[in-house]
């Protein structure tokens, strides 16, 4: 048997350079935003801030943290995200598991019905009219129910469950376990990686999506953090617009406050990743290889 090559080969070097470059491209804008959030507005006007803050101060963070509407948006968005993720996971599991069972009559039909919705959607205006008639415009419900089940995520889970050995289930059944018992005591504990991944998908989706908030919510108390952020950034970017309108541009948040708000809105969801990291990699690649 040939001895395995150890050490750092040419190819390894190449990969390191490529991956390193990709990391830099991702991380530099992030560092730039952090540096800006800690700099004085004056230094930013001079264009002297790149990766290191100039005129170091925490005024911007003070402004963000004393802005009650931002704090409320953060709390509200966290509650919304957790609530949504839990409900979405329950639905996804309860749908995906039965659909893996051959003994379910009409299984193909049900699967088709769900997959069908992936190809067609009504569009924003019919959706708006529907929600209006359901009286859920301007409520938290409109941010939870319409997107509660992602068929894509359900199919991922279904494929994973189909990969589990049928014999485990058979033996549990022979021991007298009910279907619910099998699902909750045996199947789900075995599926932790995929469940963690799907939780993350749902949570990140809810955290980052602001289009539905934009269209279906006009009560500013129900704005999520990302919508507030979107408003803040787009408005500060358009100083030409404010000039054209005659609004007062100097009353609008400065560059450093904008950056601090970006960090404020991004850090909470980034913090979730390390907790799910150990499941995440396995979950993503599961089902990629057929054995």
């Amino acid at each position, binding site marked *: 048997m040939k001895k395995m090559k150890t050490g750092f080969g040419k190819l390894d070097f190449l990969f390191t350079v490529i991956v390193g470059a990709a990391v830099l491209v991702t991380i530099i804008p992030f560092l730039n935003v952090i540096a800006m959030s800690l700099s004085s*507005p*004056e230094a930013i*006007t*001079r*264009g*002297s801030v790149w990766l290191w803050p100039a005129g170091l101060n925490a005024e911007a963070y003070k402004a963000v943290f*004393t*802005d*009650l*509407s931002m704090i409320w948006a953060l709390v509200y968005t966290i509650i919304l995200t957790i609530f949504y993720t839990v409900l979405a996971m329950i*639905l996804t599991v*309860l*749908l995906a598991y*039965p*659909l893996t*069972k051959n*003994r*379910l009559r009409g299984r193909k039909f*049900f699967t088709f019905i769900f997959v069908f919705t992936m190809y067609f959607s009504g569009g*924003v*205006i019919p959706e*708006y*009219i*529907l*929600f*209006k008639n*359901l*009286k*859920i415009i301007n409520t938290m419900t409109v941010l939870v*129910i*319409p997107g509660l*089940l992602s068929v894509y995520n359900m199919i991922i889970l279904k494929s994973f469950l189909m990969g589990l050995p049928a014999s485990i289930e058979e033996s549990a*059944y022979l021991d007298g376990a*009910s*279907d*619910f018992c099998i699902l909750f005591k045996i199947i789900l504990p075995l599926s932790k990686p995929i469940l963690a991944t799907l939780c993350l998908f749902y949570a990140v989706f809810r955290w980052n999506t602001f289009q539905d908030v*934009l*269209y279906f919510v*006009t*009560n*500013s*108390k129900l704005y999520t953090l990302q919508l507030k952020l*979107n*408003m*803040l950034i*787009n*408005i500060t970017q*358009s100083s*030409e617009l404010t*000039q*054209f*309108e*005659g*609004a*007062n*541009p*100097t*009353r*609008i*948040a400065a560059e450093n406050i904008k950056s601090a708000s970006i960090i404020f809105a991004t850090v909470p969801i980034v913090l979730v990743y390390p907790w799910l990291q150990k499941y995440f990699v396995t979950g993503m690649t599961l089902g990629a290889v057929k054995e």
Partner: protein
Amino acid sequence: MKKRVKCAAVMTALAIGSACLTACGPKSDNTEAGEKTTLRVEIFDRGDVPAGAGTITDNALIRWIQEEFGDPNNIQMEFVSVPRDQEIQQLNVLMSAGEAPDIVFSYSYNTLYDFYKRGGLADLTEYVQNSSNLKNILGDDILKRGQVDGKQVMIPGRRILTGRMAQLIRQDWLDKVGMKAPETKDEFYEVLKAFKEKDPGNVGEKNIPWAISASTPYFTDLLYSFAEWDEMSEAERAVTPWPMKPGFKEGLRFMNKLYNEGLISPDFALDKDSKQMQADFANGYVGFINDDFGRPLQSGSYYETLKKTVPDAKLTAVDTFNDKDGKHPKEIYTPVGLYIVVPASSDNAEAAVKYLDWMAQEDVLLTMQFGWENKTYKLDENGFPVVLETDEAKKLHWYNLGFDIAVIVNGKYLGSQERSVEFNAVATGENKDLYIDCYKNSIRDGWEPVTLPPNDALIKYETNISTKFTELVTKSIMAPSAEFDSLYDKLQKEFVEVGGKEVNEAAVKQYDEIMK
């Protein structure tokens, strides 16, 4: 085995059932509060509500409107907030769903015109005729701009300050090179050359006599000053795209010369958001700038930073881009801010115009714009409101709230244009006189762009020609002098071919029809 089949079916049914909840929710009946009319009014949400002031749709000013206008007229006011920068998308959804507020407005004439074409706007002619306050403050000229096919379907808000761009030069640099403030293009060129050669700011290689960016308004007034107005028909003067107007090439030739002699920002083409231009200015590298009038003078802007970098820096307002008749033509804004409409789906068109007419009274407008005397503002010796900067005052009223509620005017309105200019000038503190000079320059010999309703050619070719326009301008300026002519001619021909010709023909035809 049968039991298990059932069980699986139950689970699926559970999941389907919950997913279908959206489709079969309870249909609650409409509950309307008595005979009170509910008047729904759009308001921009700029995300700048001060802490403790409530929300954009529920605050002291809005309660005041309810008490002063709503209650006496048995009207319930309801403000509907629309995020400022997503306004058009949101409006499209609301209009299509028939759920738009009774009072809707936008700066985009084209969007509203489109609603009109699809039958989406109510005819307000009759109501406006009976609104003396509103007619008084807007005047016939402005109201006319909201008429289509002889019907008053839009009510234009009145723009108070129509000035757009103004030029500023470093007086301290002029003093050091021993020159007076330039008044013509030739003098301007000499000054730029002196700035380059003598380096009065002592900044070496970073010296930029005139800072520009990729955003063309920062130098288009110069290009326009080369236009050969005599050679054009009235319609061509008004609506023909610039690269097809005689004289445009000479303007670019001048810019090309400045570029090749190192008199303008070398990397202007990369500076898309003008941040570099402003940073260079703030760092004291720049001698001359043609920016939005007043913007550099406001507190927190780059002039303030410049004075910290170079303590004896001083700016003077100049107006140098003369044409061959000795005039200083420059683009100004039309005297219209946003356009206010009432959707055809609304039952409250009359109440809506009534509200606008009520707003047009002087004392109401003053309260909407500034709040309440001694609570949110004080009157100075000249009768100008001075906004109080206390936390208590901010909870009651803030700048952009007044701005966004008083939609019939754009910018602070204090009875006349002169007073409004002076009010804004006072707000810039020590730059007051400079501000007034800038404003005067910005409207001197100003020409107003003509707003045409969108036509098919423009919709089809707009992207084409605007991309080509940028390419034409940027490449021509950056070309080596010897290649300028051939490059310009080639790109100008392309501009005409990718849609310039069609757009021009359609616009000229449309203009002639309107003016007939």
